[in-house]
């Protein structure tokens, strides 16, 4: 096997380089749980996971001060990549969810 082929397999199977990041969150609208993303699915992705996780943290901070205001109560806040797969928190290399709430 050539080195090029081996490196290609490694790139595909070991660590995937994402094309960007979004912040996934859910909110309660009446009785429905709506899933949304920041930036939106039709907008350009964030190129930094640090920025994305920081945004996720800020959304969780808002939710902590929501006081039952449903409009700004966000749950299950975490960062996803361009394929929608959850991204590990960069500080720990482990999955992290802000404001977890089971459906």
């Amino acid at each position, binding site marked *: 096997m050539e080195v090029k082929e081996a*490196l290609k397999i490694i790139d595909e199977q070991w660590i*995937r380089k994402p*094309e960007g*990041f979004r912040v996934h969150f859910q909110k309660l609208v009446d009785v429905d749980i709506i899933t949304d993303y920041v930036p939106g699915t039709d907008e350009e992705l964030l190129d930094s996971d*640090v920025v994305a996780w920081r945004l996720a943290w800020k959304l969780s901070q808002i939710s902590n001060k929501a006081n039952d205001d449903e409009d700004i109560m966000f749950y299950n806040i975490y960062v996803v990549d361009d394929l929608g797969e959850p991204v590990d928190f*960069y*500080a720990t*290399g482990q999955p992290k969810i802000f404001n977890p709430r089971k459906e």
Partner: protein
Amino acid sequence: MEDNLLKVNQMTGFVLKYGQEVILALLILVVGLILANLVKKFSRQWLGKMTSNRTLISSVTNILYVLILFFVVGAALQQTGINTLVIRRILIGTTLIFVTLIIIFRHYIPTLPYKVGNTIKTGELLGKVEAMSLINTRIRTFDGNTIYVPNNKVLNDYFINYHVTPDRRIKVDVAIRYDQDLLKAKQILEILMISDPRTLSTPRPVVWVLNLEDSYVKLGARAWVENLKYWKTQCELFEKIKLRFDYEGIEFAFPQRDVHFYHGAKPFGQPDNIESEMMEMA
């Protein structure tokens, strides 16, 4: 006295004969100059909406300005009754010769090696080129200062143009203690660089053991990114490395010395009869 009267009469006659034409010509010149400036201003605004290429905008508006000026001066001269045909021919001929010389010798004409919009570092000054003239270059630093740098000062010293190459290499050196897991540290550094979408796949991010220093092992993480994303990517990489190393239990090195105390036992290397040897030396 009579000579002076004659001269005055001649001047009066001249003014009466040609005064109207001269005044009209001056009027044409003034109106033409105002018109040329207005056209330059509006064309700059209009082109600015169509393209962000400032050099192109500047060139087009300047050419327009010169052309309008050319016609205005020609019309003014025509109004005075001067035959402009010869002047126009000389001007056209001169322009053609000038343009031909520029085309032939353009490679030898000294130019500033940067354009408007480039980020350059000259001496201690780092900023973006906002405008260029024959005498100086206007640079805006990233903290908002606008500085006019004489062109000869730039050309007489080395400077860096960050726009010549599209990519730039990130350099992050990390020092870890000798008792830390070197392979784990290398792996973490490599994962952090590869998983960042801004780092390029070619050349691949790499981690080197740069040196075995007195009290630490020096690791060097290298990755290539686009010029525009360099600073932010490097800063975030520093942050990620610090947090991940803390989480994984890899300790950074800091300057230190080991001090050994011997209670009663003879230190290694000290001879048995050190006291008698010291007496002999004295």
